């Protein structure tokens, strides 16, 4: 590898942030698809939201506008609310069904 390329890789730039965001998002998706514990699923959702958030911030820095930051702030608020509601549902589900396995929760189908 040429030194300039190594140099540019070591230099932390937008690419790194985008890769980080994409990785986080993919890990979230992957985790959501393979795990069955509801709490883990909620955590995976958080991962995806934050992955998307990092991507937003990156582009907002890159383009020099503030809309991305506004979006991220909103997303964080929504995520906090979502986790509050989600966790209370999880607690109730656990009390009623004594399990946190998402695959066992299939009664709401026709």
């Amino acid at each position, binding site marked *: 590898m040429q030194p300039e390329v190594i140099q540019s890789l070591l230099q932390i730039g937008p690419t790194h942030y985008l890769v980080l965001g994409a990785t986080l998002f993919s890990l979230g998706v992957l985790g959501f698809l393979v795990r069955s514990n509801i709490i883990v699923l909620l955590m995976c959702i958080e991962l995806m939201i934050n992955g998307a958030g990092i991507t937003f911030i990156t582009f907002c820095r890159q383009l020099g506008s503030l809309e991305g930051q506004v979006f991220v702030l909103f997303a964080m608020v929504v995520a906090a609310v979502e986790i509050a509601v989600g966790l209370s549902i999880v607690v109730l589900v656990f009390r009623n069904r004594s399990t946190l396995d998402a695959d066992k929760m*299939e009664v709401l189908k026709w």
Partner: protein
Amino acid sequence: MVEGRQVFDLLWLVPAIPLFGAIFNCLLGARAGNLIVSIVGCGSIGLAFALSVCIFRAFLDLPPEDRMIEFCVFQWIAAGNFLAPIDLLLDPLSMAMITMVSGVSFLIHVYSVGYMEKDKCFARYFFYLNLFVFFMLTLVLAGNFLVLYIGWEGVGLCSYLLISFWYEKRTAAAAGLKAFVVTRFGDFFFALGIMLVFVQFGTIHFHSVFEDPAKVIDSRMAMWIALLIFAGAVGKSAQIPLHTWLPDAMEAPTPVSALIHAATMVTAGVYLVARCYPIFELSPVSLQIVGITGLLTAFISATVALVHTDIKRILAYSTVSQLGHMFLALGVGAPAAAVFHLLTHAFAKALLFLGSGAVIHALHDEMDIRNMGGLRQYIPATFYTFTIGALAMSGIPGLAGFFSKDAILHATFVNGGFLMWALIVITASMTGFYTFRIIFMAFFGEKRWDVHIHHPGTVMVIPLVLLALLAAVGGYMGVPHVLGGGDRISNFLAPNFGNPEVHATAEPSNKGVALAAEDETAVVESEEAAESEKVLEGVTAETLAEGEGHAPAGSPEMLLMLVSAVMAFSGVGLAYFFYVTPEGREVPAMLSDKFGAVYNILTNAWYFDKVYKAVFIDTYMLMSEFFWKAVDTAVIDHAVRGVAGSLLGGGSIISSLQLGLVRWYATVMVLGAIIIILYI
């Protein structure tokens, strides 16, 4: 008391009072109690009768040429050039009709008070009965076709309601339905006839239509109008082929049979044809059809009456037969004779029905004359009045039926030909036989019943006596000239049926020739009649005016009268021989054995009902079943169910994708997203 012409302004009250009675009995009757209901019910009709008598007296004071009073109650429909006011027309014909209708109705109402006293629906009964009288009076007083049609349908409705009065009884409900449907079949054509009249004349007003119809329509169009109107009359007056409803209508309470199905409603058809006579006169063909229908009906139903054993059905067939006589009279150009017979028949037949009602009442609803007998000693008042009615009905000289029937027979002989005359004379003899068969089987011989006799109360006997009086002397309004009478009825009705003088001199018996051109005897006879008319030309003009187109022909008429009287007596005598004398007792059974085929035809009423059932009802049932099973169930239901089922099936396939697993949904979502991204 209102004087002079003013009394005519009260004409509208004649139908209005019964309407008031009907409304009262409908709304308050159930709460008012039987006494008040009977007072209102009978009283309203009695008032209407008293009023029509007053009007009648004032009417007689008018000179004959003024005897045509029109009275507009209010303008009802006015659309463009179509005007339909509620207007009433008082002329000799409607005058005679309202007097008869209100009078007979009054007597029958009074009788009903006794007959129906135990019935729990007393008020409903009088509501229907009063309503019927209202519609009937509207019908006969109508001044245009539409008002007549209202009355026409109204009486049909009341007939339906009263036939099915005991609606818990299946047969009664079915009979009411049958009567309604069959008469409606005729009414449909009548409605078409009215429309045709409006199209041709531009008005439905009687006076303008009948003033000179020849100016507007030719004989072909007159034939169509006449036949359509006649179809309505056939249904209402129970003529062949629409006569089958009347015998079944005997499910009604007996006073109803007397009022509606003998005296008034069924004669509405005769009234209608008489009313529209100017149109019928324009078309000899239509008169011929009317006459032949009447003749066949008279003959066929008389034969059926010979063998029936239900007292009311015998009388019903007798009614059909007598209505046939009236149509025959109309057909052979003697409308005055028809109306005369209508009136005398109304008295006699109402009397017979009420008498049979008293018999049925006495024997606790027994209607089979085979289970009667010997009633003479038990209910003598009913026996005597019934006998007077039967004598009048059979045409025994001196009583009402004789004069009117004789007028018909004479007109038939002169205008219809020998064959028609012979048939109607045989029918006259059968009339004597079947009426006296009832008398001999019900009132004579040994008693074949063991119940406690219900004696008819005074309210039932008084109408019987009054009607018997009318049936006995009613004929004297039309005693023919040969017997020294004045033939006042045709004189009275002369303004209605054109100017007979013109017919008598200008076109002597042309109808007779036209009617039976192929019947040579008839031609000879009518020529004879014409000759004898010439002989009689010296007679005063008044006599000619009263002669209904064929002034009395002296001795031939006497001879005819003698023949018909002999035939009537022979019928009565035969009934006496068959049902009273010991030698004759076995003859009826023997005859029915020997002529089993004929007997079967007669007891089955010439298979009219069976044929209609096979042709119309069964076909209709088959069609219904076809449409039910083949079309409705197979096609329509399957189509609807198919659509629903395919949606359901498709849905169940798709719904199998709904596993309820969150991660499965997420996987599908991700895959979808990936596909979309790849596609972009």
